[in-house]
C-alpha cells in the first residue's frame, strides 16, 4: 500500500501535469544509465505491453495523488513526489515520455485496467493476493508500517491498543494486517500480529484517519499507516503520536495488469531498470530527497 504525507512544501519541484510530458528535471542524476537499456536490448513481443508503450512513445502511469510525499498534485495542477520522480525516471530509461492518470486507489488495486494505463508507480505493496491479478517489478523501496495513537487517547504502548478501534485506509495492507489476515510479502512477510481484541474501521484514504481526530471525533484510537504518511500528518499538526517500532516493512513495487497485453518483456525491462536504479544510487538519492531517509534498502 502506498501512503505518505508531508506538508505541501515538499512539492519542491514542478513536474509536468497529466497531459503534458517531459523528462524529469530534478530527479535523475547524471549517473543515470543510458536511456532504454532494456527497451533497446531485445525486440519486444509484437502487440505486447512493451511494444505498445514504445510504439506510443508514452508510458501511462496511474498514481493516486492523495499520498504525499509519494504523489502530490500541486495547486498549479502539476504532480510531484517520490513516486512521480521514480515513474519519470523509469520512462526516461525506457526512452519514452510519461503521462499520469489518477484513478481511485481501489480501482488500481482491483486490476482489470482495460489498457487505461500501463503501469502503477504508486508505492504498491507486493502481496500474494495482488499477484493474482497484477505483475510486479522488484521492490523499489520499502516503507515501515507505523502504528499511531491519537494524542488524547493517552495510549503510548502497543499493548494499550488492546480492545480499541483502529483506523486504516480502505483497500490497504494495513487494514488487512489489522484484520488478522496473513500478509504474504515473500521473505518480508510480517511476523507481528495486531494487538489483541481490536476492531477496525476504514476511511477512504489513510490521511482521513488523523483528520477525524483533528475534527474532534474519537471513533477510533489508533491509526496504522506508513511512517512517511505519519510524518506528514505530524508535520501538518495532526494530533498523532507514534507508538512502538514499525510493525512490518512493505516491499513496494511497480505493478502491471495481468489481464492486459502480454507483459513478460515489459516486466523484464522494469526489472533491469529498477535494479539499475538501485545500483547507481538514483533511488537512494530520491529517497533522501523526499523522505529525508534511505528507505530503499529494506529492513
Amino acid at each position: 500500500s502506498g501512503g505518505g504525507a508531508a506538508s505541501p512544501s515538499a512539492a519542491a519541484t514542478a513536474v509536468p501535469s497529466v497531459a503534458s510530458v517531459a523528462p524529469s528535471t530534478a530527479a535523475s542524476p547524471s549517473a543515470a544509465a543510458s536511456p532504454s537499456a532494456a527497451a533497446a536490448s531485445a525486440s519486444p513481443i509484437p502487440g505486447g505491453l512493451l511494444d505498445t508503450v514504445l510504439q506510443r512513445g508514452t508510458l501511462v502511469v496511474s498514481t493516486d495523488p492523495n499520498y504525499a510525499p509519494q504523489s502530490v498534485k500541486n495547486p498549479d495542477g502539476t504532480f510531484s513526489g517520490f513516486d512521480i520522480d521514480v515513474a519519470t525516471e523509469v520512462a526516461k530509461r525506457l526512452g519514452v515520455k510519461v503521462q499520469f492518470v489518477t484513478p481511485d486507489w481501489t480501482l488500481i488495486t482491483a486490476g482489470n485496467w482495460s489498457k487505461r494505463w500501463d503501469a502503477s508507480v504508486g508505492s504498491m505493496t507486493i502481496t500474494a493476493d495482488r499477484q493474482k491479478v497484477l505483475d510486479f517489478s522488484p521492490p523499489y523501496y520499502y516503507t515501515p508500517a507505523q502504528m499511531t495513537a491519537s494524542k488524547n487517547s493517552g495510549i503510548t504502548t502497543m499493548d494499550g491498543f488492546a480492545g480499541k478501534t483502529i483506523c486504516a485506509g480502505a483497500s490497504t495492507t494495513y487494514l488487512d494486517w489489522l484484520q488478522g489476515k496473513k500478509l504474504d510479502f515473500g521473505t518480508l512477510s510480517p511476523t507481528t500480529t495486531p494487538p489483541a481484541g481490536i476492531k477496525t474501521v476504514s476511511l477512504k484514504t489513510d490521511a482521513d484517519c488523523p483528520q477525524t481526530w483533528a475534527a474532534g471525533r474519537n471513533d477510533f484510537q489508533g491509526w496504522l499507516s506508513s511512517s512517511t504518511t505519519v510524518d506528514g500528518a505530524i508535520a501538518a499538526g495532526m494530533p498523532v503520536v507514534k507508538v512502538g517500532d514499525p510493525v512490518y516493512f512493505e516491499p513496494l513495487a511497480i505493478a502491471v495488469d495481468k489481464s492486459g497485453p502480454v507483459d513478460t518483456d515489459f516486466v523484464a525491462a522494469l526489472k533491469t531498470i529498477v535494479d539499475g536504479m538501485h545500483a547507481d544510487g538514483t533511488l537512494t538519492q530520491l529517497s533522501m530527497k523526499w523522505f529525508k531517509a534511505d528507505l530503499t534498502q529494506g529492513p
Partner: protein
Amino acid sequence: MAMGVGGPGLIGRVSAEDGFRLAHPDVIVAQIAASRARAGLRFRMIFVLTWIVLVGGLAAALAESGKVDPSFIAKWGPFILQGIPVTLFVSVCSIVLAVVFALFGALGRLSRNPPIYAIATLYVSLVRGTPLIVQIIFVYLALPQFGIVLDALTGGILALSFNYGAYLTEIFRAGVEAIPRGQREAAQALGMTERSIMRRVILPQAIRIVIPAIGNDFISMTKDSALVSLVTIQEVFWRAQNAGTQSFRTFEALMIAAMVYWVMTIVFSLGQERLEKRMAEGDVRL
C-alpha cells in the same frame, strides 16, 4: 359499386338465405372481451419473456465468459446481504427524521416572518445546492468542530435526513399551497385562528397529498444511503466494495449490490403502489 377492404367482422355467421347474420349482443361483448384479454396476455407474456431473455442472457453470457466467478457469489453474497438491515435501518430513520425537518422547513418557508422565512430558505438553498456526498463528509467532520460528536451511524442518518428534509420541505410547501384557497377561507369565515387553520384544516389535507412523494423519496433514500458508506457505515454498498477489493472482484461485488438495491426498490415501489391505491379507494377523498 364500392371499392374497399374487409368483409364483415367475425362476429356472426354468413348463411345462404339472408347473407350475414349477426351474433347475439352478449356474444359480441364476450368475443371482444376475450380478444382483448388474449391481446393483453400476449403483451404481458412477451414483456416477461423479453426481461428474462435480457437479464438471463446477460447473466449467462457473463457466467460463460468466465468473467464472473460463481464461487465468489457463494462466498461473499451472504456478507453483502447482511448489509440490507443496515441500509433499511438508515433509510427508515432518515426518512422519518427528514419528514420532521421538512415539516419545520415548510412552516418556515410559508411563514410571513422574514427571519424565519430567510432561515428556511437558506436551509433549502444550501442543502439543495450542494452534493449529498459533500454534506455527508461535512457532517462527519464539521459538527465535531462545534463539540457535537455523533457516532458514525447517527451522523450518517443526520446527514441523509437533513438533505432529504430540504427536498421534502419544498414538496410539503407545494402540498400546502395545493390546498384550494377556499379551504382557508372557509376556516377563516368560521372564525378560526391562523394556527388552528394550519393545524386542523391545511396540514391534514397537505399531508395526504404529500404521502406519495414521501414514498418516492424513501425509495431514493435506500439508494442514496450507499453514500454513507464513506463514513464507515457498513451497509450494502460498503460491504460490496469491501468484498470486491479484498478478493479483487469489484465487478461481481457491485453486480450483487446492484441486484440487492434493484430488488429492494421494486418491492418498495409495489408497496407504494398498493398504498396509493388504498388511499385512492379510501373513504376520504381529497
